[in-house]
């Protein structure tokens, strides 16, 4: 009698558990599919200026992301057309290399003052970002044109003196 009941419950429980297992697997597969396709579709190489300049032709029409140091005297902005151009100089992409250079502020300064550092001209159409200034760290996303100018859809800036633990004494003058 008791065995009968036990057999019955397992028999009933089994397909149910299967159903839930299958349901879970379907969801899991859908989620994985979404993540994998979205990752491959939207992957952008995050490169340094040097890497962009070296690979130029190999990059083709890919959307890439480049970081570099803004060279102050190259910033041009036309408030009529909202056309913004500036040049970024190569700086190391690796945090430990930046540390070696003495922090982000120092790494940027070194990059901007090094005439041999590879440089890249950036074109962007839109409002001039508040954080764009000489010796800011720029992260630009867009495509490299055939003319060697980088056409950015998005520009981001980081100002090391603002948030880094830089000596405050000089910071007010450094800007």
């Amino acid at each position, binding site marked *: 009698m008791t065995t009968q009941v036990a057999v019955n419950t397992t028999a009933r*429980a089994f397909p*149910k558990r299967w*159903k*839930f297992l299958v*349901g*879970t697997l379907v*969801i*899991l597969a859908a*989620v994985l599919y*979404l*993540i994998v*396709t*979205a*990752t491959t*579709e*939207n*992957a*952008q*190489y*995050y*490169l340094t200026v040097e890497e962009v300049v070296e690979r130029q032709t190999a990059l083709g029409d890919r959307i890439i*992301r480049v*970081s570099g140091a803004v060279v102050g005297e190259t910033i041009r*902005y*036309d*408030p*009529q*057309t*909202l056309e913004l151009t500036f040049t970024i100089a190569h700086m190391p*992409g690796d*945090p430990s290399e930046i540390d070696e250079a003495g922090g*982000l502020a120092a790494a940027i300064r070194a990059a901007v003052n090094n005439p041999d550092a590879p440089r890249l001209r950036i074109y962007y159409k*839109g*409002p*001039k970002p*508040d*954080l764009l*200034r000489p010796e800011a760290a720029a*992260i630009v*996303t867009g495509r490299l044109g055939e003319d060697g100018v980088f056409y950015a859809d998005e520009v*981001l800036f*980081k*100002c*090391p003196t*603002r*948030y*880094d*633990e830089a*000596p*405050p*004494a000089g*910071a*007010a003058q450094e*800007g």
Partner: protein
Amino acid sequence: MIADIGMLSLTMALLLAVYTATAALYGGWKGRWTWVESARNASVMIFFMLTISVVAVVYSLVRLDLSLAYVSEVSSRATSLFLRVTALWGGQRGSILFWAWLMSAFLAAVAIRKWDTDRVLMPYVIGVATLTTGFFIWLVVFVANPFARMWVVPGSDEIVKAVLPPRGATPFIPVDGQGLNPLLRHFGMIGHPPTAYVGFTGFVIPYAFAVAALITGQSRSDAWIRTTRRWTLVAWLFLSIGLLLGGRWAYDVLGWGGFWGWDPVENAMLMPWLTGTAFLHSVMITEKRGMLKVWSVVLIILTYLLVIFGTFITRTGLVSSVHAFAKSSLGLPFFVFIGIMFLGSFTLLLKRLDTLRSEHEMESFLSREAVFLFQNMLFLAITVAVFWGTVFPMISELVTGERITVGPPYFDKVTGPMFAALVLLMGVAPLFAWRKQAARTLGKALWGPFAVATLIAVVLGFWQRMHPAAAFGIWLVIFVALTTLLEFWKGMKARMTVRKEHPLEALVNLIARNRRRYGGYIVHLAVVMMALGVIGDGYFQKETQAPLRVGQTLSLQGYTIRFDGLRQYMGSDGREVLEAQVSLFKGDEFVRVLRPRRDYFIVQQQPVTIPATHTTLAGDVYVLLVGWEEITASSATFKIYWNPLIIWMWSGGIMLIVGTLIAWWPTRAARREVSYVLRPGAMRPQPSSGG
């Protein structure tokens, strides 16, 4: 002098934390209740000690004690009193102290609660919460000390920041400080860190209870869940407010017309919110049916780990981000701490898996239990997807040596469908019965909302030539709003017929008598409103830009702006303001004057573009001043965004707060149960009271 007192009490707090954690865990392990009692008192003392340190930092900021490195980093002579106080969380050193202080407040609050019924948990709750608090105090003392001074070391032009002077160093006191980052001077960014931190630290309490329950084997009963329900709600509420304020700040200050950019720092806050929300739902099933127990425990552990991870991301900038807190020496300690807590928590969970057996079997797909299980999975899946996208650059660099990022499109594409599925579940879940639901009755209940929503979405979609996904979004929002409102209507109708109540009276009583349930539904309605805001922002945003001479106009979405002139003046907090006056017309009718401006913070040499917005239920007209003729001031360039439905985001946010408060509000029975009076006598071991 004041700073020395602050440093002293900070040191005391660290020593107390070490003592508290040791005494609590040792006392719990050996059953020595005098040790536990002592730990309990010491844990309250940690809060007092940290309070003194916090007051000392605030005092130094207000008095502008520039000998402290932190003061010169975030405050200046031009900084107003209010901003000097809020500068406590304006930089890294202060904000970690602030975090630790909030955590210690939760710790003290949990320590002085009445422990009569569950005192076996007490040593471990206090122990685990103190370990976390102690870790942050340790960081404050040794890694990011707000009491550090600046020193000039002979033979080097570098300035060293340390509490104790390096050999032969002389103190350095700057003439003025840098002042608070101008971008952070906005109510959203002033309110965002405290609320976010309360949310972050608040989740440590349910986690501590969960771990304590696992250690003691009390996880067999689900009492810890009932005990922590309201703590969890508080944490969740504050985390939600923090997210909303952050979004509002981005909308008002960053000037790109949006409120969410899938930035690592934003993701870092969203992830614990996601798992925390799943936890809030999962525990309902655990409480009511004794199921999904492993889920509940896993979710609270994940929430805790993501809270620490989130603090780590925001405070170290390991992942590159617009939110510009640079990388620092915090990385390694955080990594080690997260690792230890991760391994510890999951080892404990595996060892105690037998105490978490489900009391019932899942009977049908069409049951409330199953719907909750799926929502748990979805929340977790979204969290995994967000986590993957956030750390992908780091992983790809480790594996391939190349840094590859995925931008906002990745997040939109992956989380969009899953969020939609979640909202759908949210709409139908209340209609599902426990155990098993007959498909027929479900269909009967749903066909009305389904038909109405489909009709509206199809008509609107064709008429407005919407993107299919946008039309589906509209359908979803209407469908879920209707099913949720129907729940209210059903309850009201019952009261109106049985008790002969007036409709409004019935509604108020309905909510008041079932606060948890209807508070929850109000939150659901709020989420639907916010979803509307997200759809508007995602699919219907428009923009245009043009240079205008005085008197010229620019139109967008039926609105026209006319440029009337520019003026320049000195504002407060050391800023130079350039303000444009613009008249806004709808059709030919004058609506109002808008004043978009550009503030230039002189000391920081930092411009901030502040949009002017005109808000309506249909959408916001969002005007930015993006360029101008320097000398004549006769021409300026404007960018206008039409941000549809965005008001629903913020009003939904307020509704979410209201709903959560209703669900949180204690019932009379609960109020009697909870007493916050410190009564150490009550926790002496009483023989065989059966815990």
